[in-house]
């Protein structure tokens, strides 16, 4: 399978995106959030652009 790992930075926090190809040729993308990028299988180009740490889950009561 061919995997691509990408990490998007931005004010929304750190989203990690890993694209893989299923046996029938369809793509499947895993999205994970956090400081560490998920381990990818096989070799691939690291296109990640690490950004600020993802916001911690703040205990903040909002109107809604």
């Amino acid at each position, binding site marked *: 399978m061919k995997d691509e790992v990408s990490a998007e930075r931005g*004010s929304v926090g750190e989203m990690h995106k890993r694209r893989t190809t299923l046996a029938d040729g369809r793509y*499947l993308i895993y999205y994970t959030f956090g400081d560490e990028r998920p381990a990818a299988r096989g070799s691939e180009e690291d296109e990640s652009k690490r950004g600020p740490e993802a916001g911690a889950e703040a205990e903040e009561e909002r*109107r809604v």
Partner: protein
Amino acid sequence: MSELRWHPLLGEWVATATDRQERTFLPPADFCPLCPTKPGGFPTEVPEETYDIAVFENRFPSLKSDPPAPAVEGTELYPVRPGRGVCEVVLYTPNHTSTLASEPVEQIYKLTQVWTDRFRELGALPFVDYVFIFENKGEAIGVTLHHPHGQIYAYPFVPPRVARELAQSRAHHGATGRCLVCDIVAEEKRDGRRVVAENESFVAYVPFFARYPYEVHVASTRHLQALTDMGDEELRGLAEILKAVLAAFDRLFDLSFPYMMVLHQRPTDGGAYDFYHFHIEFYPPLRTATKLKYLAGSETGAGMFINDTLAEEKAAELRGKVLPVVWGGGGDGR
């Protein structure tokens, strides 16, 4: 086979997707094709469990990025074209028994980011004119798989319902110089009786013109056209208001509330749509705990909906079920 057939009476395309007749229908919970594959178990669509949200191409798509030639030849009266587009499934969580309403607001916030990423990526495809993000929830809607998920259809044209909203929005802007949804939001806030919930960035209301008893619209208070126009605080606000509305739906009759949820954004065909306004619409089929609002002759054949209820009363019911959204509060917790 996937093709588009022209409907000359309505001036719109109809998709014919015969593969979908054989799609998985209500499998038992231990045979869920959307759950992560268990060690030694039957292979599912998702080989791994380590994800927050997963997106994959639908195995039974209505549109395909590389569709075959149509099964029939078109004519001048009945044009036919290949059903080119993209259909994706968005898994909200690896947890089969969860729902979007019962997930913590943090998970919904992650979902808004995934939606944004999908809108950006699919909208950039040269053959995609509209990215439609939606969810069908509940057997009452016709859902075939219970694992919590939504879908994304990337159409090669602007779909009819959105095209009509665009036409109305364009006409209103031409006549008044103002955005139609901005005016609707202002009127709903001024009146107040139909507002269900609000925060700094969004307002949820049962619209004056609701067609379903518990129809809810969620509109951004800032004039913008798509998820990609939102900042981080707005995505957080969107997650909060979605959590608030979805949880209120479930509290209404103390059951997992069925609904269709649709995101209306600008087209991705390169046109100018500054007059349009991002909003989400919910169409719940229940009119009581045990009765459905059916789309019968008037709705389907004439296009005129009949609502047996008053929007102001239904909004008051929902408003009474809204609770503050707590970040870090964990999962449900509705």
